[in-house]
């Protein structure tokens, strides 16, 4: 049972990392691709929180793989696509159309099939 708790934790940290990355990039006032972009993003707290979350997510995921068969664990990773869409919708207030949701579900389903076979 606690393996699934670890998988859930890994997903939460990875999703938070993606969210914080996005929040950091939207604070940058330099156009993406220009040299000042990276210089500026290093000044935001969100950048370092994002790195911390992604690293923690990765560590927990390694712990999952240590305790569990890869083929049993990886299908759950595809749920990350649904979680990221949920935080985009409710935290970042993005407009997620019905077809975008359907696309996200297809991507999740497809990756689930790939990792089960």
């Amino acid at each position, binding site marked *: 049972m606690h393996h699934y708790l670890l998988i859930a934790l890994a997903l939460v940290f990875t999703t938070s990392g993606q969210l914080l990355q*996005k929040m950091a990039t939207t604070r940058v006032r330099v156009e993406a691709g220009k040299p000042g972009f990276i210089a500026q993003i290093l000044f935001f707290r969100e950048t370092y929180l994002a790195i911390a979350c992604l690293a923690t997510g990765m560590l927990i995921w390694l712990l999952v793989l240590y305790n569990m068969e890869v083929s049993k664990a990886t299908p759950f990773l595809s749920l990350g696509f649904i979680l990221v869409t949920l935080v985009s*919708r409710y935290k970042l207030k993005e407009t997620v159309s019905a*077809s*975008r949701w*359907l696309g996200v579900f*297809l991507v999740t389903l497809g990756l689930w*099939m790939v990792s089960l076979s």
Partner: protein
Amino acid sequence: MTSRRNAYLCMSASIVLSTLAQLCMKASMLLIAQRHGQGPELLQSLLNPVVLLWLFVGLGSYATSMLFWLFAIARLDLSLAYPMLSLSYVLVYVVAVNWPLLHETVSWTRSLGILVVVAGIVLIVHSEHRRPNVEIKTTPDPVD
């Protein structure tokens, strides 16, 4: 060129580079396994120039893909960009079953899963182009 178009270019670069990264890292590990197995000579075979080259190209592509990813999400919705990243899984699969060095086996369920992923991405990108408020200037859709 609109900034949104630039964002799509960054997105594509990020996807291609992360695919390259996975494949190069896999190739380097495979070469190590072929040479010496995973015994005590692991460190020695890690220092082999061919292995090192694959590994460095792999890690370099990985770092560069993360940079392009940041450029992409600065302009695009996260709920649009993130699922598009799964295109990298598709590319990895296509190369992994066709590249003689990796020669991974084709499985029907896996191929079907890959097709479902592609369908999802096509749906997401296609619906984006039909939204009236996007900046991209496309030729008028004959259906409308």
